[in-house]
């Protein structure tokens, strides 16, 4: 029997089934819950590895299930989708380990891990979606499964943040639905196709296509936190650290950015989008968001809020790379999907460690924390330098290809945006590092927990160390076969050069 057509569905099911089982578990069944979580994550990673090998050897993985007359639920693995799936599956495993440690002893863990698994299911569905309707379904499932995670703590602030999140994302989803329906009425298909499926319509339906593009990007821009649709993201920082990591690095924000990549490449096609004149405004908006996010980050004393505004800035690199509309910039944008994820999850894990171990939430409380938690802060340092774009951490590779792509596309102004952003990143990350490593620690920390000789619990310490090493090695070994960069090159090659 040929299993290839079922593998995409199995990848989705590998987190859906454990998630559904976890919902039914009693709170005290900790071991079973942990086992289900970890087995699901490992199985998913194994299946993704299998697909990676297969795609590299030109295998075809596609699941089709009838949804409505003329509309199918399509799950298809291609280089672009696999890049995102690998990121999600890999980081899900790490985040699960972290979440188990983070939530030890706290209430409602079955509920949390149930939605946690659903969230990853939705993310993988978004990544593997083979048409816009499948994408939309999983995109909405993502909204619904992350809302309970945002309000998990149940405090007044959390509920308010959740409400804001829901308002933003539901409106975004509605705009996306509107754009999708309009597009379907014009084209009669929603199937993602290399170089888009609207070629030939741009002369007859130019205005309509521009409007559809705006609707789709606005719908996706909410989750991708493009200015001025980013308001929910800093507020959602009240969520527990694993959820923040999930929002910023694995799932929500990435789903939005990935959707923008899909719309430009596989719905409109880069050339058609450029002909319609929609890529230039998208590039301008992304560039503005990059600078705006960094400037706002400068003035935040709350560590997680600073990181949130940093995400607003950094995720727009992906949109910028896509909007520059050239092969090299595409590599930069697409590879940043992975690089930003690995670096940002490291930073959020570290922020969570500081909060859980020492009760540190503000940057002004971080004096000398590097002496108390050297491993955590070493991981944070790697992540921060990556965000600045300092070599050899992963961020340098992204910025390199974005800059080179901008020169190739004759858009030299992007270099100033990159330089400005790097400068601002340095301005809001280096003072944190200086404070943590070189200032004298206070006599007492805000709320210190005792972990004996260890700086914190292993389940909290290992994930940031693993992701920090990943961020370093992804940059250092960028030219190695199967690296994210090589994968992004494959995507660019298929998008721009293959007949």
């Amino acid at each position, binding site marked *: 029997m040929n299993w290839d057509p079922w593998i995409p569905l199995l990848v989705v099911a590998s987190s859906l089934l454990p998630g559904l089982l976890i919902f039914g578990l009693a709170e005290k069944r900790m071991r079973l819950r942990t086992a289900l979580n970890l087995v699901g994550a490992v199985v998913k990673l194994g299946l993704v590895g299998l697909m990676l090998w297969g795609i590299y050897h030109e295998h075809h993985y596609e699941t089709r299930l009838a949804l409505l007359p003329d509309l199918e639920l399509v799950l298809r693995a291609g280089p672009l989708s696999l890049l995102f799936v690998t990121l999600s599956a890999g980081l899900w495993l790490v985040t699960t380990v972290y979440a188990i440690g983070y939530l030890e002893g706290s209430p409602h863990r079955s509920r949390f891990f149930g939605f946690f698994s659903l969230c990853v299911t939705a993310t993988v569905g978004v990544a593997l979606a083979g048409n816009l309707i499948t994408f939309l379904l999983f995109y909405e499932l993502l909204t619904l499964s992350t809302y309970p995670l945002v309000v998990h703590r149940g405090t007044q602030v959390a509920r308010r943040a959740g409400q804001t999140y829901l308002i933003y994302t539901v409106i975004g989803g509605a705009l996306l639905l509107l754009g999708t329906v309009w597009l379907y009425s014009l084209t009669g298909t929603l199937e993602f196709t290399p170089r888009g499926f609207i070629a030939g319509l741009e002369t007859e339906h130019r205005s309509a296509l521009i409007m559809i593009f705006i609707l789709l990007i606005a719908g996706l821009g909410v989750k991708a936190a493009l200015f001025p649709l980013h308001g929910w993201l800093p507020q959602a920082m009240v969520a527990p650290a694993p959820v923040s990591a999930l929002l910023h690095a694995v799932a929500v924000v990435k789903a939005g950015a990935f959707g923008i990549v899909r719309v430009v490449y596989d719905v409109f096609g880069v050339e058609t989008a450029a002909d319609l004149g929609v890529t230039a405004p998208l590039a301008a908006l992304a560039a503005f968001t990059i600078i705006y996010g960094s400037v706002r980050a400068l003035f935040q004393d709350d560590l997680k809020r600073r990181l949130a505004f940093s995400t607003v800035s950094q995720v727009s690199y992906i949109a910028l790379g896509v909007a520059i509309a050239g092969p090299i910039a595409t590599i930069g944008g697409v590879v940043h999907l992975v690089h930003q994820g690995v670096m940002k999850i490291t930073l959020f894990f570290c922020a969570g460690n500081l909060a859980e171990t020492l009760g540190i939430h503000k940057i002004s409380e971080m004096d000398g924390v590097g*002496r108390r938690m050297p491993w955590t802060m070493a991981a944070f340092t790697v992540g921060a*330098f990556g965000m600045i*774009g*300092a*070599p*050899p951490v992963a961020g*340098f*590779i992204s*910025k*390199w290809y974005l*800059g*080179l792509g901008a*020169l*190739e596309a004759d858009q030299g102004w992007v*270099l100033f945006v990159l*330089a400005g952003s*790097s*400068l601002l990143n*340095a301005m809001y990350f*280096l003072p944190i590092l*200086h404070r943590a*490593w*070189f200032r004298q620690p206070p006599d007492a920390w805000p709320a210190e927990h005792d972990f004996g000789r260890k700086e914190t619990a292993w389940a909290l310490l290992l994930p940031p160390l693993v992701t920090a090493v990943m961020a370093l090695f992804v*940059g*250092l*070994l*960028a*030219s*190695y076969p199967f690296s994210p960069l090589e994968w992004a090159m494959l995507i660019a090659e298929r998008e721009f050069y293959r007949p």
Partner: protein
Amino acid sequence: MSEKIYAMTLLLVVVWPLLLAIPILRAHLPWPRHLAIIPAAVLILVFQDVSLDLDWLLLGTGFAIDANVRWMLMLSVAVWLMAASVSTDSNRDTADDRAATFFLLTMAGNLGAVLAADLVGFFCFSTIMGYGFYGLLIQGGNAAVRRAGRLYIIFLVAADLALFEALLLAAFATQDLRFIAVQQAMAGSATTSLYFWMAFAAFVLRAGIWPFHLWLTSLFKSASVSICLLVVGLPVATGLFGALRWLPLGLSASAGPGLVILIIGITAVLFGLFRLFSRFSNRMLPGWGTVVLSGLFIAALGVGLMQPAVWLQYAYLQYPLIAGIVLLLAVIIMLVGDSRDRHPEHDLAMDRVEALSREVAQRGGVMLQWSQNRVRQIRSFGLALWLKTVRQARRVIDRLKTVNVVSQWTASITMFVLIGLALAWLAM
């Protein structure tokens, strides 16, 4: 076979200190700072050109050593040996341990930048060196050093940005990012001018060349001997070395940029000399000496840009010149004395350094004691000679009644003179 061993040694020069920078890995090793230099010292003795291509590293990079690079490697090894000798090596103390991490990280960055065969490798390792050096400054320094360190990091970030932009321009012009290939490609590129000024600005910022010397002179006011040695051996030397490797020198005449750079160099020399003699102090002699000598080097670059033939004629002097400048400054630093003599507010770290030095002298026996005595004698003699020269020079200046002007000389006046010279040149 031997080539493979040489290539592995080349890699080890950078990887070994990097590994030792991880505290766990050096925890049970004696003298990790000294041990880290061994592969580099061995490589100096290999009198043949060695190269190693690492296509899988970063964007594809490599290391290489030839006669020119050997000069710089010798210089680096000398500087690191001197610095290691006046630093602590005890791993018992947490602060010492952290300082050792920065020390070894900076060393790996410096050696990597020296041996890098291409622009990406140089950029990567010099950035590691820069941030590691900042850590070293802040970790062991007193309040004044930390202030200077903050200024240094601002310049470092700005320099890195400029260098990154130059790197992008080079990569856009040619896919081969080895130094020679880039110099040739940029000599005829449409973006030469932008590339040139970006790279030049970056190295001026990194090396603390006038008018961006403020952090450098501030450091010399208050830093310890080992830090002063590292300042001239690392940011200054690597900055000058980088300028030689990155800038398209000796390929085609660039009269305009050459003249501007010549003026900057001459102004730096004059400014340094005026500041040195107007407010002379032993303490500031190495600082202003660095400004003067690096200014001289910049002036030479300007001449080289204007007259490529002259540049090529004296090409063999380039790297020995950097080595000479740095060694001269190192000698001046040693002659002028350690921070206790120059600055009464020495910090606790220096006490530890000296205590350990004494311990080393006792344990190391007669040889070390003998060398220290010789150094002291040479220092006293050299200092006396230098002070005599300085006094004579000051007498000449006093006779010319220019002291008032000199003492009130500020950066703004220098800038004004520079702009005046530039305008005169433009008018001509």
